[in-house]
């Protein structure tokens, strides 16, 4: 029998994890859930259920406040570029406070520790500042801002740090299938590195705990699974389902190169001192800089056909350790609830449902 939990708003309900959260909270737990999406079109999946879906941009305090009214817990599952990741934290937090919410669960990422963390990495490890991937820096900065707001605010903040979130509708699954079918898939160093994989249902389970376990305000939790497959094994699961041999997936070279100018400017822009300086600028100037920045990042870059390794892929495929998620187990009582084989069975069933040419179930 399902227990009636707190009323939860899922901001970012149109995304992969947000959508699964709405499904689980509504179908399995029967908790009152309110999907919130940036645009009405983002409610297409949530609309399968008879729910009170709301439209509010994560940067729009007033619309968000109205959308969150009456909810005890807010889950921040907004995806997007670095500006969205960083810029959405304060509006969501302040709207949650204005709406009288008790707790905000922030969906962060294990990538705050980097794609290739050192042995023994846990929540107490310093978060590296010299990372080259803007996503990592943005998540790191978003967490920092959230906990700073929560220090003086009334809404409790809890952050979760999952790694590679897989399962039905994951880009790590569908995107990989697309790459395999399109002849664009490859493995760096034969994919020997460990994959910090976590099934989306385990992430949702952790969110449920983070929303309800008392005394965890201000805490961040790494979450994971007991099995840590190699990237080769992970890729082989999808390839095999599509009737392809892992042996046919090429091994790619990737040479670490000095940071590009774009990467250097990305890192500089997301440093704390620059962020502070930007915040002190008048709003029109800040908006102008943001627009100019977005335009520069959107410049098309020629990409040759065929498999290509990029920095993220190289770091992931060469990872030697996954972070330690013992704290989540100890404090939240988190244990993965989705067995790996069952997770793959469901994932491959979804691939077939989504129209991929699955030959082996």
């Amino acid at each position, binding site marked *: 029998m399902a227990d009636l939990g707190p009323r939860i708003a899922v901001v970012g309900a149109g995304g992969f994890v947000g959508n699964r959260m709405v*499904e*689980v909270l509504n*179908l*399995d737990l029967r908790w009152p859930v309110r999907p919130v999406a940036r*645009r*009405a*079109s*983002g*409610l*297409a*999946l*949530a*609309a*399968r*259920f*008879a*729910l009170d*879906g*709301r*439209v509010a941009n994560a940067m729009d305090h007033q619309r968000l406040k109205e959308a969150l009214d009456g909810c005890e817990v807010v889950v921040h599952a907004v995806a997007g570029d670095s500006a969205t990741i960083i810029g959405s934290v304060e509006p969501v937090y302040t709207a949650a406070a204005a709406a009288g919410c008790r707790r905000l669960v922030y969906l962060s990422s294990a990538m705050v520790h980097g794609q290739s963390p050192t042995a023994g990495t846990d929540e107490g490890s310093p978060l590296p500042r010299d990372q080259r991937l803007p996503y990592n820096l943005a998540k790191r900065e978003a967490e920092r801002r959230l906990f700073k707001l929560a220090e003086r605010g009334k809404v409790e903040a809890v952050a979760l740090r999952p790694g590679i979130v897989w*399962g*039905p*509708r994951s880009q790590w699954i*569908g995107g990989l299938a697309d790459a395999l079918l399109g002849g664009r898939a490859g493995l760096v160093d034969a994919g020997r590195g460990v994959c910090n994989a976590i*099934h989306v*249902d*385990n992430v949702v*389970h952790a969110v449920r705990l983070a929303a309800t376990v008392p005394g965890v305000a201000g805490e961040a939790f790494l979450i994971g699974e007991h099995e840590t497959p190699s990237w080769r094994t992970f890729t082989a699961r999808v390839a095999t389902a599509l009737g392809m041999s892992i042996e046919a997936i090429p091994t790619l070279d990737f040479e670490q190169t000095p940071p590009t100018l774009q990467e250097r400017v990305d890192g500089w822009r997301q440093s704390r001192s620059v962020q502070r300086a930007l915040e002190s600028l008048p709003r029109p100037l800040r908006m102008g800089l943001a627009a100019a920045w977005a335009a520069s990042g959107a410049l098309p870059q020629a990409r040759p056909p065929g498999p290509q390794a990029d920095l993220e892929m190289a770091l992931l495929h060469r990872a030697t350790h996954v972070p330690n998620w013992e704290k989540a187990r100890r404090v939240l009582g988190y*244990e*993965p*609830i*989705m*067995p790996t084989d*069952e997770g793959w*069975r*469901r*994932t491959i*069933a*979804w691939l077939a*449902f*989504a*129209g*991929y040419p699955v030959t082996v179930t």
Partner: protein
Amino acid sequence: MLPSVVISGCGAVVNEYYGPLLQRRELDGQLRVIGVHDPSPDRMRAVVDRHFPSARPCAVFTDLVGLPADLVIVAAPPATHAAQVIEALEAGRAVLCEKPMALTGAEAERMVVTAERTRRLLAVALVRRWHPSSRIARWIVRSGLFGSVHSVDVFEGGPFRWPVSGPGYFTRSLSGGGVLADLGPHLLDLLHDWLGELELLEMQDDAMGGVEANALVRLRAGNVPVVLRLTRDWERPNEITVQFDQAMLRWRPDDISHVTVTTRDGQALKLTGPEDGDFLDSFGAMLDAVLERMAGCPSPVVEGREALTVVRLIERAYRDRLPMVMPWLEPAHG
């Protein structure tokens, strides 16, 4: 005397297509847009300001049909189609009604009967009939050029991005349903036009108290099995595949101009229509056909009586719907 047009509804389809198209036609001196109606003053004002500064904004639909228009374009939410179309026809106007024509067969029947009684044109905006690519496909299917048809498979959709105005769009009472009510009229109309009468065998969808994001419809056209898979969920190659005795036809519904035919000996032919174009051109061709028909020319339009067949088919599909099998939605038990 230029034909005069009024528009009911200032939502996405007007902003994306009818607005730019009619504005262009007005500037070219081909017609006049004399009135616009929408219950939202903001939406109506935005369309008037952007496209038709000389049109009269009408807060009430009755005021719109009271204007001396030759044609009423009904592009309001589907739940309002029947009442608005009937009122416009009774007022002596010709009507171009957006799809879906109506939410039920009974509503559509009343619309058709009214059109026949008042002897006014009721055309339905099944715009894909005007894509050059769909005309090529139709000709190939109906001519028997590559032999008889063995099977038809349709997979269409992707993450939903249509700029709808609010969550109300995703309600059965306003839209008639989900992805089947949205894309189904286009595709079932084409299949009906190409293959003849369609028999519904089965419909599955993933609605769980709301409206579906995924639908699977199995049909039969004579002995030809037809599978229609629609989605608002995940990006996949959108394709209509027709298997013939001697070849396979592939058409991407977003490709306005081309179809590809692969013969049994492996030759791939890319067939192109007489004119290249975009979606707006197809809307333009459809509008031209409607205006020509109003002027007494025998231009082909999809009349209400023909569109009624598909409305009934969709109504039956929803009535007999079965839940899709989705094992990944079951609770996890560790």
